[in-house]
């Protein structure tokens, strides 16, 4: 039982402008991360109806691939500008490789299962996770990188401007958070434009609602789904590359498991088949995470495991009150 006086303390704590500003800023940064780790999943699960349990391990592969590019070329790219430029090279490489991998995975493994019950997809993608993780572990051990702890060498490639806490009007602003927010906004805008402003995006939205009708209008729905799956996996990898720099996540084999559940939470809370819902849910989860982290790790209430619990409470609340999700439409998504 929390004494009443602590509740008053907590309220007063959050009324401090400096605390409030920090929580809001943390919330934005966390929101960006949640939207990014869920963006690939919402394309694949939300629009195509494929339960991709390999999502987590693909994020981890993205983190290691991105880290590989950074660690390999860090020596020749010094300074803030050089490192950030190198990071953009890294995410282009990660996106290209994982998009190709995702496309191949869809054509060879996922496509034959569309007409089967979802259990087949769950078993298949879960199996793919096991294979990918073991392969990754073997490669890491071969190169003497400890697979189950954070890859610090990759984190060490952060440029100074991103590692530092900057003083802005007396508030401490972490460079990494600014970078995460900017990248999150850019990727969200990119996916949004892809879905709403390109012909392919139109085919995908039409095909995900009624694949048969789209085909009868001349749309090659198979090809559109291969592209969506590829792009979804590519974005997942890019999210991983960004997490590699963040010590709260970092590149390790465990990143897969850490990412998978929150990503599903965000997609389900937002609603299947709606990217807008995923963005809103990501922001919601991000702010709740930031707020509860501040509350439960401050001096007021010390209980550092609670923020994670709150994320799942959002999921439970959504499923009870609005099972189709915030922006979901019943019977959309899937085949």
């Amino acid at each position, binding site marked *: 039982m929390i004494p009443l006086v602590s509740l008053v303390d907590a309220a007063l704590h959050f009324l401090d402008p400096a605390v409030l500003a920090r929580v809001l800023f943390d919330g934005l940064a966390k929101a960006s991360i949640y939207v990014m780790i869920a963006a690939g999943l919402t394309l694949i699960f939300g629009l195509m109806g494929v339960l991709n349990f390999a999502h987590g391990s693909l994020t981890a592969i993205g983190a290691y691939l991105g880290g590989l590019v950074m660690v390999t070329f860090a020596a020749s790219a010094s300074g803030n500008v050089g490192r950030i430029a190198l990071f953009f090279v890294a995410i282009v490489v990660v996106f290209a490789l994982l998009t190709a991998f995702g496309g191949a995975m869809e054509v060879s493994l996922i496509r034959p299962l569309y007409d089967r019950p979802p259990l087949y997809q769950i078993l298949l993608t879960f199996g793919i996770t096991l294979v990918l993780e073991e392969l990754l572990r073997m490669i890491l051990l071969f190169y003497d990188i400890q697979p189950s702890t954070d890859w610090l060498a990759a984190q060490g490639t952060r440029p100074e401007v991103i590692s530092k806490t900057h003083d802005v009007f007396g508030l401490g602003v972490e460079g990494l958070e600014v970078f995460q927010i900017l990248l999150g906004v850019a990727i969200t805008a990119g996916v949004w434009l892809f879905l709403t402003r390109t*012909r392919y995006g*139109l*085919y995908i*939205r*039409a095909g995900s*609602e*009624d694949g*048969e*009708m*789209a*085909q*009868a*209008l*001349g*749309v*090659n*729905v*198979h090809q559109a789904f291969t592209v969506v799956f590829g792009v979804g996996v590519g974005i997942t990898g890019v999210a991983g590359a960004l997490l590699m720099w963040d010590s709260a996540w970092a590149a390790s084999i465990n990143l897969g498991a850490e990412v998978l559940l929150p990503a599903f939470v965000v997609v389900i809370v937002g609603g299947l*088949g709606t990217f807008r819902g995923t963005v809103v849910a990501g922001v919601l989860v991000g702010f709740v995470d930031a707020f509860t982290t501040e509350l439960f790790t401050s001096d007021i209430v010390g209980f550092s495991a609670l923020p994670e619990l709150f994320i799942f409470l959002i999921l439970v609340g959504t499923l009870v009150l609005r099972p189709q999700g915030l922006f979901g*439409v019943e019977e*959309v998504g899937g085949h």
Partner: protein
Amino acid sequence: MSHLLELADVHTYYGESHILEGVSLHVDPGETVALVGRNGVGKTTTLRTALQLTPPRNGTVTYDGEDVTGSETHEVAQAGMGWIPEDRRMFSQLTVDENIQVAVKDSERVDAHLDRAFEAFPDLREFRNRKAGNLSGGQQQMVAIARGLVGENDLLLVDEPSEGLAPQIVEDVANALRAVSEDASLLLVEQNFPLAMDLADRFYLMDHGEVVHSDTTEGVSADDEEIRRYLT
């Protein structure tokens, strides 16, 4: 004589149930052909078989001189066969504009085709940015016909266009179909027998997965003994 669409002794199954038991029919360029018969005799399945949505197990479907049996549906559609399906099948989350854009096959000239659709259906213009799922049945039917129009199809498969619509709206739909039949052949499934006879040049009467009678529509009425037997 080369037909635009020809089904030759087509047998189609849903799982193990034998739906079409040897259907043969054809549609020539410029014709409107009606497919009539009671519910459940295989009219819709005949259209689905033509489009390869439900490919036949035996028999062949020829379109524009090519054997398309077993092809992908999107390839058949790209060859110029359009579908205006039962229940209209709107992409309900897409706007009217987007519904029509999906159907445009020539991606270089999307805007020109959109303009053409709104010229043909001026009433749709004011709804163009509304989600198709929020339109009335009659408006949705116009969008479905507009999708057939902008696809530059030589043949439109039209399934129950008047179903569930008020009589005044049915007249509008009939006029729209007459207009599109200027440019394309129509294979029309229609429960409203007088309407079907009015729109079509010829008709096929189906029963139990087979064509039992075919004739021109001139002077035919539902009171004819042969027809009444299969419709009531």
